[in-house]
């Protein structure tokens, strides 16, 4: 018997709604679907580094420290639940991870995944070689499965392409 297709949708704050909407037509009704969210472990580290700047004042354990970790975890759980609701698939598997975002995404799709749906992030006003954010770029380069790159909002018109340079460099001669 053939195994069913498995699709993973990577949801990120700011683009998740568009990503879920754009992914919907690509999921076969009989296929399995999972929603993946990764909480970056370094953002809390940045806040922590500033605390180190105070020479240890307000370290965890002091009364003033609020559990940022906990807030992030709860927000991620709620985001995945909202994404499943929006997708309209109660059977969607929810994958909540924490770590280096790009590496956790690759790890989550390392086995038994046919398609990874990724929203384009980055700055849409400057399209070009660097218009994908660093994490998305890494995932597109290293995912061991097919990747569907979707626009989380309106795709740009073709007029966003700059005019071709009048005399481009000559192609390198064949060796």
């Amino acid at each position, binding site marked *: 018997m053939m195994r069913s297709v498995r699709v993973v949708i990577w949801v*990120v*704050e*700011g*683009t*998740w*709604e*568009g990503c879920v909407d754009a992914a919907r037509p690509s999921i076969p009704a009989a296929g399995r679907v999972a929603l993946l969210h990764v909480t*970056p*472990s*370094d*953002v*809390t*580290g*940045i*806040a*922590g*580094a*500033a*605390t*180190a*700047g*105070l*020479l*240890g*004042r*307000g*370290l*965890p*354990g002091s*009364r*003033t*420290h*609020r559990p*940022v970790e906990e*807030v*992030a975890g*709860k*927000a991620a759980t709620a*985001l995945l639940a*909202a994404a499943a609701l929006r997708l309209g698939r109660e059977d969607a598997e929810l994958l909540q991870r924490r770590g*280096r975002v790009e590496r956790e995404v690759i790890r989550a799709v390392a086995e038994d995944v046919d398609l990874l749906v990724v929203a384009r*992030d*980055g*700055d*849409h*006003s*400057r399209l070009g070689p660097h218009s994908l*954010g660093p994490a998305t770029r890494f995932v597109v380069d290293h995912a061991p499965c097919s990747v569907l790159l979707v626009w*989380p*909002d309106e795709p740009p018109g073709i007029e966003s392409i700059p005019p071709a340079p009048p005399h481009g460099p000559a192609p390198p001669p064949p060796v």
Partner: protein
Amino acid sequence: MPGPIAESLAGVLLVATLGCAIARPWGLPEALIAVPAAGLLLLLGVLPLSAAAIEVRSLGPTIGFLAAVLLLATLSDRFGLFEAAGGWMASGSRGRPVRLLALVFAVASTVTAVLSLDATVVLLTPVVFATVAQLRLRARPHVYACTHLANSASLLLPVSNLTNLLAFGASGLSFARFGATMALPWLAAIAVEWLLLRRFFAGDLVGHAEPQRPAAPRRPTPVYACAVVGLTLLGFFVTSLLGVAPAFAALAGALALAVPLLRSRRVSVREVGLALQVPLLAFVLGLGLIVKALSLHGLGAVVTHLVPVGASLGALLVVALVAALLANLINNLPAVLLLLPAVAALGPGPVLAVLIGVNTGPNLTYAGSLATLLWRRVLRQRGEELPVSEFMRLGALTVPPVLVAATVALWISLRVVG
């Protein structure tokens, strides 16, 4: 004790003190090494008793002022001031990430200026994090904005940063004049941070919070706490015009917040005592004495040699640069303590340039390179990490222009305000 040995001993003790304050082995208080180290230097005669007495007398009022400001910030948090600020930012942003970033800039700059950078790092940053999470936007730009502004926006008032408090006496300026002179550099630093962070994080400032989401129950604005903080700020200026130490305004503000909280048993006397952060105050005193010993045995002369005389734009830029480098090499507190004796005689311009360096410089390594290295280990033990390449890249991008813009603004300000 011969000079070089005394110098090395004081140097080793300074590094040990800073290291212990950051790594906090077994959660021990930061004063644990600082105070015995200062005692040892006194006992061995590296630090003469008379020099120590002068240092204690000059640091005493500063430490009292710091205690009152820390108490003011902690108690206003107990009134829900920071949670309310989170609510204002969430509703004011209308779910737009760039708008939210602008509000985070406004709130973080104000909190840093009025309630010190400690308040921004310890009390405001977690609230900003929670606000962003609630709006389902990306936290990175907003968290970086808080940590950067805690440093760059701490130029405005003597209370904004412990470094300012330490330099306040040496600057010979009144509270009001300090604020008037630093207003332009403060605005310049914030403006440059805005332009650069906005651009650096353009990719993360995407999307918008869904409007149909039910907003979290709004916390009522703590009117009383807002009024007390506002009046305290006014009090800083009034006391300074009357020739009274502005520390008394901070003390009055802290008392005005403490009394109703104590009466309604929302805080205990013990908690107020903890909020005074006595170990920290002892640490600052110990650190001051260690740096004094270091300064007496030759390092002071070296530093004096590094600092150019005069208040020309070039001289101010060199002073700010030296201060920023020193702050990144060791840490900004010992850096300002080392530099102050060298610049105090040169007038307010160079003193304020030192503050620009030691306050904005740390965005490169936050606590100085030593501290950052130690902090990475602490974080790794907790399963977190520090994106060193990212924050160094952002620091390298923002620190030089912020430093130059603020120093040029200071130069102009000194001409206008005089």
